[in-house]
Structure formats: C-alpha cells, structure tokens
C-alpha cells in the first residue's frame, strides 16, 4: 500500500521526472509486483474483473509485452512479491470484524445491478488495485515458464527491494511511493510508459526539497495517512490528505503533537516506525532478519535523527547497566533490536520456511493463521454467503480438515506453534468465531509419513494431474506405502516423486484414502473409468471435494440464481451454467465489458475456496515432507534453484480457478434458447440457432469460438452428471432431488444438441 494520497500530489508538484527508456539499458530492475500490477491494471481497467474474477484477461499479455521490451534493451527484471503480512496489516484485515470497503462496494454494486439492469457499473472499487494474492500461483507459473527471476519476500517487498538495491543486486527499483520512506538519497522508478518508451522516476532528495519537507516530516505525514508500514489512516486524520497535511506542516503544524492526545494512534505510529526499521528481509545467505545497520547509516546520518533517541537509549543503558543481558551494541542505535519485535512484525518462523515462501511454495493464509492465531475468512467477491459457502468454510468437516492441515504444517515447527490456540474467524454477518484444533496426537504426519510414491520414471519426467489419476488405483496406494523408516532405495528426489507423494498424502488427509491406506468410498470414485478417462480430472476432483465437504443438496446448487422465475428449466439452466463455469473460456486479451452473472460467480467463489483447501492440504504435506527431510535422498540436498522451481511449477492446484466467462456464456445461450422457445411458436432448432447467433454476437469479441466452447461445456456437464450418478449409486449423496435435477438438466442439453 503506497503512501496514501501522495502520488497524485507529487504529480501536481511536478516532482516526477521522465526519462527515456534507453537509460535503463543493461540494468537489473527489482520490480515490486504489487505496485507493478496496480499500474498495469488500474481501477479504470477491466471494469468487470471483480465480477468474473480469475486471472485478469489482459494481465499476462501486458507482462509479456513488457518483458519483450526489457529483452530488447537487455534489461533483467527481478519480480519481488510481498510476503507475509505484518501485525498491523493483518489487524487491518481483521478490521474490527466489520465488512471492509471493497466488500461493501461489491455488495452494493451487485445489489444495484439486480434492481436495475442498466449496466455501466464498474465492479472494481474506485482507487483500489487488484488483490494479487489469488494470482501468485498464476504469476509464478508464468515467470518460471518464461525463465524470469522472481522472489517472494518474507514480509514487505518494498524493504526487500531496498536490501537488493543496497547490495547492488539490482541497479534500480520499480516501486511505489513507499520507497521514499526507506532511503532518501536515491532515484527509483515509479512507472513505465512503454508506449512512449519512457519511465517516471522519483528522486528522493529532490522531492524533499521540492516539497520543502524534512525526511522526518515526510515520514510523519505518511504514517498519519497510512502506508505500507502503517496501513491505516489514523483517527485524527480521517479527512486529511497529503496535500492538506503538507500545507499544515509547512505552516508550522506538527503531526506528532496532534498524535500525543491519542494513545492508540501513538501506538500505531510507533509500531509503524519500528516496522519500517526492522522489517525482516531475506538475505543473500538465505537467512531472514531485520535490515542491519549498514543500510540505516546512510539514511539516518543524512536525515535529522531526533537526538533524544540516542540520548534516551544511552541514558537507559547507563542507568541500568546490569539489567541488559546481551548489550552487544548498546551504543550503536542502528544495531539496537528491541525485544518485542514479534508484536510489530509477527512471530518468527524458521529460515527454511522463509525459503519456501521465497519460492512461492506456501499458502500464506496457513502461516498467518499460526502467526496471528486467526484463520481469516472474508466475504467472497459476490458478497453473499450461501449455505454451501458456509458449509465449506465453517462447516464441521471443514474446521476439522483445517485442523489436520495445520497439524501437518506445524509438525516440524517450534513446539509453540504446535500447541498454541488457534481460531477461525469468519467475518460474515454475523461474525463467526470457531476454534481450530491443530493439537492432534499422534500427529497426522506420523500416520501419513509411510506414504512415499516412487514412480521410477526417467529423469525430468514432469508431474501431471491427468497422469497421476490415470495411474491411481488401490494397488498404486498400497505399493506406495513403506512399512518402516525409509531406506536409501525408498527415498525420493525427483520432482515428480515428491509432488506425487505430497498429493497422495493430501488425498489421505482429505479422506479419499484412509489411514490404513485403503480407498474410501470417495476414493473409489477416483478409480472409476469415468473419472480416469475424463478430459477434466482436476475440475471433477474439485467437484468431488465440494460434494464431500458440502454434503451437497439441490438447493445448494440451484440457489442463488440470477433468474427469479423458478421453473424447472430455469433451475436446470442455473445448474448447468454453474458447472460450466469450472472450465476456462479461451479468451483474447481484451477489457471484457459485457455480461456477468452473480450466481456463476458465487459458484466460482465456492470452487475457488475448494481449490484453496486442496492446495493448502497438498502444500502443507509437501512442506512437512521437506522439513522432515528423512524421506528425501541426501544426495540432492536441494541447492539448485531450478530444481526447486521445477517442483513449484509442477505442484497442482496452485493456479487460480478460471473466470466465470464460460459459465456466463452457457447461461446466456440457455436463457436465449428458453426465452425463444417460451415466447414464440418457434421450433427447437430455430431457438437453438437464435441462441447460437446471440452468443456468437455477444462473446465473439472476447473469444474465438464461443459456440464450440459452450458445446464443450455441455459435454463436461454430462461427465459430471455421470459421476454424480455414481455418487448416488454409492449412496454418497443423500438428496434425491439433486439427482433428478441432474437428469432433467441432461435432458435439456440433449434437447438442444
């Protein structure tokens, strides 16, 4: 989060310099991914993005174009993702357990839209940027495939970039105005303008003199208004903006003085200052810790360091010389590290975990829940919590599963994390607070550790989900179980073996395999030929998990619906379009500005949550595998980054589920068809032609062959129907009416084809 309202002020002040792009020739640029993407996709672009979700249609295309530009000038980009949230950032997310502004905005837009169908809405909250956490998997996969360097910072990407720059690993940094807070002596890039072959740059010293502010004053204003390190606007400054405070300070006002009356604000202010100074960074040697003195000497000697800090520190060390246990650097204030940093940064994890974070291998939500004691659930994009959504997020089975996953993750961490009390907080209305229990003994890991999949494939064979499910059988499971501690021949090193092992263990945790390593009834579905021959095993698997966790009923799948008419056919349409939304419409990179559907988005949110659950389960079993290291061959002690990137790339369920466009296209097609049939005396074929023509017309800008892809979606629905029939046969689904709904829906499709 950049310094609130500063950027436009800088432009107003003409403090932003423009340079030709050629200046950056041969440079290595450290790029703050969050800022970069907020620049690529400002809130004025892809207005419908929050209504269709997924990967923004134009995003990867933009990045690709930029990378070509870099290549042309031999510029080496290093993309730095932000990592874990700091205490204040996480507290802001908890936000008094109220709806945050984007949730309120999304709900309002959807509600408005339901009442008036005028369109012309932007689903994106003004001045907001796209939340990038859901896109980590997609972006990292993209970077690995294109052989582009990336790094996930342990905490703040801005400070990580500062470290990289100070170590001269990057020549220049592309970041937001937050970078001004770090070292006021250098230039950094604020934005690229590829079309003009220019870039915008800020020079910190120049800005200070131009704004007529000292470094301290700039910091004070920015901490009052909110920035990366202090993400809230402090209560005394709710109506203020940077220009107004700038004016205030230039006329002799003091931010500090106005804070003194409010202890809560003061506390936040201090915490921000402490965070700015002590945010840990991933260092060259792989360790993680606060930036040390070498980086701070520059900025602090040049700025006006309040003399009282040094004095008070000195006096405290003088007055209590005996009380200081380890006064390593009692006099050098730059090396003073306070003893309550965990209140500012969050509790510390092991260096190895930070390494996996840097690869993009861990789900942050799990780690943040063990750091901050809360697993946080917030409203989905469609801003409505359906019964189904509740079941999969706060239902008993889900809570139990979450506890197991956390148990696996904490198996090899400090005992503190294994026993601390965690809770799941769902900021729905009303807010739910549920206890998570990760204190399971004996640990889940001790039950699944004997699963080791050794495929004996040739070197370099790549893991695929299709391949895994095709080989999946009860024999496959029993073959993968070892009886004792693994001997050397049973140990694994190949990415495909590692990912397969992790996945099989995850399947066990998810309940497809029981702890005696036999297939459960759900697991047997996985070995049915229907499943194994499917073109879309991933989507079918997600549906299976959904049905399993959600104890699904007809009502769960046909509500909510976009149509108020609840005829039989309308219900079928809703069901078909939701299931179709699981598949990806092959799209062109354009700003999509056409039809959207709240019901399809709602189902997508549900499936996305399922995807997260599966991914969390898989990742924690993998992390435990790495941390344990007893099942891994010692010869590959994993010091090759490419090797790690191969593993990361091959891990399934990391990328986000597709946007809703194919679901919307199917919904549009079927609605047109039904309307044509109901309204006129048209025969079936004429209605189909009308529907075909309509979706060609509506979706041809965004996709090449929408009609053919809708047909493909129908085929997928048939598969799902068959699988669902199997579920009914195995008595895994109780709701008879849902079975009938699938049958009648299938009939509707047959009618059309």
């Amino acid at each position, binding site marked *: 989060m950049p310094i609130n309202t500063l950027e436009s002020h800088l432009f107003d002040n003409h403090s932003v310099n423009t340079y030709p792009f050629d200046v950056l020739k*041969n440079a290595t640029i450290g790029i703050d991914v969050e800022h970069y993407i907020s620049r690529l996709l400002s809130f004025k672009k892809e207005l419908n993005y929050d209504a269709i979700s997924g990967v923004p249609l134009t995003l990867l295309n933009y990045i690709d174009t930029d990378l070509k530009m870099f290549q042309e000038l031999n510029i080496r980009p290093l993309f730095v993702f932000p990592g874990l949230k700091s205490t204040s950032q996480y507290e802001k997310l908890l936000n008094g357990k109220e709806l945050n502004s984007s949730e309120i905005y999304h709900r309002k837009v959807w509600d408005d839209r339901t009442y008036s169908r005028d369109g012309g809405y932007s689903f994106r909250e003004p001045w907001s940027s796209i939340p990038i956490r859901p896109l980590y998997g997609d972006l990292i996969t993209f970077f690995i495939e294109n052989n582009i360097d990336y790094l996930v910072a342990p905490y703040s990407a801005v400070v990580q970039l500062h470290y990289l720059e100070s170590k001269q690993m990057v020549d220049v940094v592309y970041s937001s105005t937050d970078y001004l807070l770090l070292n006021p002596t250098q230039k950094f890039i604020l934005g690229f303008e590829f079309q003009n072959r220019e870039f915008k740059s800020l020079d910190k010293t120049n800005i200070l*003199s131009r704004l*007529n502010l000292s470094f301290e004053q700039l910091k004070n204003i920015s901490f009052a208004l909110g920035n990366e390190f202090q993400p809230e606007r402090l209560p005394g400054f709710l109506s203020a903006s940077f220009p107004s405070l700038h004016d205030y300070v230039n006329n002799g*006002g003091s931010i500090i003085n106005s804070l003194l009356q409010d202890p809560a604000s003061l506390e936040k202010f201090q915490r921000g200052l402490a965070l700015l100074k002590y945010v840990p960074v991933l260092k060259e040697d792989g360790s993680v810790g606060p930036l040390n003195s070498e980086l701070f000497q520059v900025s602090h000697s040049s700025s006006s360091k309040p003399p009282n800090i040094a004095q008070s520190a000195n006096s405290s060390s003088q007055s209590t010389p005996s009380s200081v246990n380890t006064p390593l650097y009692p006099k050098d204030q730059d090396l003073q590290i306070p*003893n309550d940093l965990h209140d500012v940064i969050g*509790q*510390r994890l092991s260096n190895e975990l930070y390494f996996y974070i840097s690869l993009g291998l861990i789900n942050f939500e799990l780690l943040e829940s063990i750091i901050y004691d809360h697993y946080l659930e917030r409203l989905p994009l469609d801003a409505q919590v359906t019964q189904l959504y509740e079941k999969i997020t706060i239902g008993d089975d889900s809570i139990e599963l979450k506890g197991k996953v956390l148990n696996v993750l904490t198996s090899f961490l400090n005992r503190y994390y294994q026993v601390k009390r965690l809770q799941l907080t769902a900021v729905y209305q009303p807010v739910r607070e549920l206890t998570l229990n990760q204190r399971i003994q004996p640990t889940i890991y001790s039950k699944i550790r004997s699963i080791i999949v050794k495929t004996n494939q040739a070197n370099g064979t790549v893991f695929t989900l299709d391949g895994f499910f095709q080989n999946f059988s009860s024999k496959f499971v029993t073959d993968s179980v070892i009886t004792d501690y693994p001997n050397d021949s049973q140990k694994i090193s190949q990415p495909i073996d590692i990912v397969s092992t992790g996945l099989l263990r995850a399947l066990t945790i998810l309940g497809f395999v029981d702890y005696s390593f036999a297939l459960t009834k759900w697991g047997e579905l996985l070995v049915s030929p229907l499943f194994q021959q499917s073109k879309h095993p991933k989507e079918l698997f997600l549906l299976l998990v959904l049905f399993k966790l959600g104890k699904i009923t007809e009502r769960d799948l046909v509500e909510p619906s976009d149509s108020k008419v609840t005829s039989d056919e309308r219900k079928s349409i809703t069901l078909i379009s939701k299931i179709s939304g699981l598949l990806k419409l092959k799209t062109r990179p354009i700003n999509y500005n056409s039809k959207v559907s709240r019901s399809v988005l709602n189902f997508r949110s549900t499936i996305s949550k399922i995807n997260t659950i599966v991914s969390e389960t898989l990742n924690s079993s993998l992390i435990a595998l790495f941390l344990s290291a007893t099942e891994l061959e010692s010869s590959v002690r994993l010091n090759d980054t490419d090797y790690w990137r191969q593993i990361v790339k091959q891990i399934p369920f990391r990328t986000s589920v597709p946007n809703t466009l194919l679901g919307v296209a199917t919904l549009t097609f079927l609605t047109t068809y039904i309307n044509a049939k109901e309204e006129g005396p048209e025969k079936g074929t004429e209605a189909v032609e009308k529907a075909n023509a309509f979706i060609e017309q509506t979706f041809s800008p965004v996709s090449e062959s929408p009609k053919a892809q809708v047909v493909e979606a129908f085929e997928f629905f048939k598969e799902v129907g068959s699988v669902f029939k199997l579920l009914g046969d195995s008595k895994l689904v109780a709701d008879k009416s849902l079975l009938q709904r699938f049958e009648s829906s299938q009939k509707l499709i047959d009618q059309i084809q």
Partner: protein
Amino acid sequence: MSQIKNARPNSSGTSGHRRSNSRNFNGSGPGSNRKYNGKEESSQKPAVQQSKVAAQNNDDRLLFALAHSIGSKVIVTVGSGSSYSGMLVSFNDFAADSELSVIVKYPELIDGSQENDAEELPETLVFKAKDIVAVEIEQLDFSKAHNSYPAAIAEAAEGNTDSKKAFKTDTDISGKSQSKERELQKWVPEGPDTDLGNLEDDTHANWDQFEVNERKFGVKSTYDENLYTTRINRDDPDYERKLVEAERIAKEIESQSYNGNIHVAEERGLVVDDSGIDEEDKYSGVLRDDDNSQNKGGELLLGMLKKNVKAQPSELKQYKAGRYVPPNHRAANFHHDPAVLQSSAITQDTSKTKKPKEGQDSKTGDSKEQPKTKAQKEIESLKEFSSNLKLPKKPAEDSVPKEKNKQETSKTPSSASKVSDESSKPATAATTTSTKKPFKMNPNTASFSPMGFGGQTDFHAPHRIIPASGTSQGSFTRPKRNISQQAFFGANRVPTVAKQKILKDNFNLFLEKHRKDPKAPFEKPFVTPPTWETTIEESYRVLFPINPEIPMMPDNRMFFYGGGQTSPIHNTSPLPQQLIPRMIPMIPGQGPSGGPGVPQTGSQHFVPYQPQLIPPQMMMSHNQQRRGYMPPLSQSGMGVPMMAPPPFPGHYNGGKHMRSDNKDLR
C-alpha cells in the same frame, strides 16, 4: 527632417541590413552596383590580404553575373554529359557554402542520356555543385538590368520573350529609369505654401476621422477606445495620486540617460545634434563597439569573453524593486539561463558606448557621394578583418563552443538573437534587442546533475524551458532526452552486460550452507523460536519515543506551545519554560547560506520567543481557509501555538522539526 527623408533612397548602407537586403533581392541596379563598388574599394587593402580579397572579388563578379542572368536561358552541363536548358531561377549563396548550386525552371533535356525522359523532368531542377560541369548563359546582357526574376517568370509563363511588351513591375520601371546613375539633388521646398510641417505637428488637431466619415459617407463608427485599452477610472479616489505617481515614473524614465542612443533620445523629445548621423545608424543600424581598433584576433575574443563573465553579475544587480526596468532587462532577472542573461540583460553598456561617431562623415545625406573618411575606412577594414577572422588561439572547447565562436567573431546582428532563440524560446522579449555581447556557456553547467538541484536553479539542458522564478516549481515531467546512464545511476553504478548478475541462486540457504560446510547439521525448523533475535532488552516503544516537537516554519518562524491551560501536554511536560533558555539566537551574517537543497540542522538556529508577530489565530484560520482542513491540534482545543518572528526573511532551514530533549512522555 526633410533632408533625411530625401536622402534615404541613396543611403542604403554597406552592411547587411534588412532593408537594403530586401532591395537587393529584387535585383535593383543601384543595390547591386553599390555592393560591387564597395568591394572594389576594399581591394585597396594591405598586401597580406590581397589574394583573399581577390578571391572575394571573383566571387563577387560571379555573383554579379549570375544575379544579372536570373531569368535568362541557361544551359547546364552535368557530369553525366547531359545538358539541360532552362531558365535560371536562382542560385545558392555560394560565398557561404563555398559551392555553387543552380536552380533552373522549365528544364529541357538538350543532349544526353536516354534514361531521363524529357517529359518526366520536373518543373524545377536543382543542380548541385558536384554535378555541374559547365553553366552557359545565353544572351547575357549586363545592361539589361530590368530583366528581373518576376518579370522573366511572367514572360516565360506567357511564352512572351519580348519583355518590353510584358507586364512591368515597379522594379522594371524604376530600374530602367535608374540604369544610369543620376545626380542626386537635395529636395528644396518650392514655396512657403507647400510647407506641410512635420507629421507630429498638431496642425490637424481638429481632424476627426469618424466625424468626417459619418458626414461624408454616412458610416457610423462603432469604435470604442476602451475595447483596445484599459479604461482609466478618473473617478477613482486615488486617481490624483496615481496620476502623480505615473508622471513621476514617466519622468524618471525620460530622465534616464539615453545611453547615447540618439533614436531613444529623439523619442524622448531631447534635442540632439544628429547632423552627420546616417539615418540607418540612427534608426535601425546595429550598435557597434567603438573600441574595435584596439582588439586583435583571438585576444579580442578571449578578452571579450572574460569581460562578460565579470560583467554579468554586476549588471544583474541593476534590477531594483520599484525601479523601471526595460522589458529586455526584465527577462534577465526572471531567468536563470545564462543564454538569456547574455542575450538580453547585457546590452546596456553596449548602448552606453554607442555615441555619435565623431569621425563619421555626415555627407551621406548630401547630393554628392563623398569619399569615406579615414576613420570610416578603418572601420570598414576592421569589419572586413573580423569577418575573415580565424582564431590563432583555440579557447578551451568546453568553455566556448565552436559555433558560438563563429557567431561571436562574425558579429552579425542576428547572432545574439540566434543564441537566445536556441536557448530560451520563452524569452522572446529578450531576443528583440540585438547585442554584440557574445554568448558564453557557463562551464559550471557541465557538472550539473539534473537532479542535484531543487527549486529554481534546476536547468541542465539548453533546450529546457526555464520557468520564471515565480513558478519555479514548473513542469519537470518532460522527457530528458539527453540524460545519460551515468546521470541516472551515478558514475559507479552504470549497468553493463558484464555486471548483470544471475540472482536465481542467491537466497538459497541450502546452497549457502553447502558452500560453508556441507557436513554441518542443518538448523532444524523446530529450533527456531517464535521471537526475533534482540540486542537490547527494550521495547520498540522506548526506541521510538514520541515527544512533542517544536516545528520550525520554512522561513525560520517557530511555533511552540505557550501558556495554554487546555493542553493535556502541559500536565506532563515542562516543555515551553525549559526550552526557551536553550534557544540560541541565530548569528547574523549566516544569512541565506543554504539553498533549498542544503537543509541545515536547525539546532543552532533557534530563536528566542518574540511575541509581536502575526497572531497565531490568524495563522491557523488562514490555514483552514486554504485547504479546508482543520488540523487535529486545533480541533481539540490544544494550546494554540505562538510564533516567533523570522530573524532573516528568506532564510531557510530545511523545514526541520525541532524536538525537545525531554524524556518520553509516556
């Protein structure tokens, strides 16, 4: 007066003044002749320059011949052997470019290669010097001075070769009558009745064109003077005072020295002895330096450059508030571009030195053309010399760019305006004044880091628009095309291919451990505690204490809390009373030592409290009015800050906040 008017047609000077130029362009006989004659005179030069002068003469002859043959039929033979015939339209300034190119209209291929189909020839052909083998001019008649270009074009277009029957332009007609130079005679009024008086005379004071127009033609005028000028409010209570003030200013202006500029003097109604002054010199000629005779070659130039460097600051200081400054001088005081300074502000001593030239003969206005005086000849020769001057000494290249040298030495009237055109387009006012002062690049500009300066002095490239000081925070978002990688990255950090690192394997703790000691046991994650390593047993709250601060105004005015009982701070902090004795008055003479880029650590610049300035309430309400933002401080009714006066207006301390040394309030 009348005498001068009469003299004008014959007085076109030898310099390249615009008026006489335009006359020459029309191919008028006298103009060309005079030029030719002028060169003839210049051939009586010392032997050293004979050959050069001879070459110059040849050029002039060719020029003469070509000028006379414009419009004639020419045959141009080119290198390929082809010959083209056509009408000679123009030729380039071969004296300057040293190569002759010829432009021919309606060309025809007479003889030559087949590749050029005659039909494909354009209307106008340009023959470059390198292609021309020979140029033949048919029927060249030097006496046919009337054969001017427009007339010839008209003839050629009509296919009418007999120019006598063709349409005749003014020059045709006047040129014919002046083919032979006649004796000029002073105009003598024929009688007392014909005395029309001067134009300025008020003899027609009652003439009202609107009235006459309406009476004669019934046209009613809609003219309103106030559309074109500011209406003077004569009812204004201050009108009398303003009138007096205006008259005072006018008097001041008029009483200023005319610096030897007779034209200015005449405008101010001063009686000046202008006898013997050329009309051109008086009204339009370029002001020239008198002390040419003392200067020689490179020393002259270097001396002038030096003189300028010294002269510049003192001249800038002439600007004083309230005193009238001519427009061209104003520009200099609002700009920080040396080019503008040089081209606009420095004219003053030029005009001072410009005096009626004593040696100059006044006979130019007479009917007889007198031989030039010795002094004039000397000036002529110096002009000649300076135009051919090549510098014996090379000045340092970085301080004097080559082309500036050229402009400097040639002393063409346009040189100054050219420089200022290039360097500062907005300063158009400045370019209108011609000057002989050379443009001197400021050597310091070379080391300018474009980002190194804040505020007003932030110029670094000649093409930049320099904002006036009033808007010193002007636009800086224009692309900086000339910036180098060094300027952006710093000299030591320019990225190169060799320096590019592969970062992939950094940050891998397995690798790092492997490097150090492959066999060492790896730190197990369960060993890592949930707390961070610390070096001191203190809370961050202690390390980042928040104390009330004494903010400093940018202009060194200072706030602190004074005596307010409402502030909760005063219960816990002994702040104001303890602080005051600590303050040390600023030492006079430190003055504005720091620019905006050099913030000072304000601790020595505390000023004792002096309560007599602007009431703080005014300050605050001013603040609120402007931004509509109520500072939290005043919202809560905290102690209202009071203000100390600025000890030195304009002094800048970097806007530092002063903090008390008192212990943490918490």
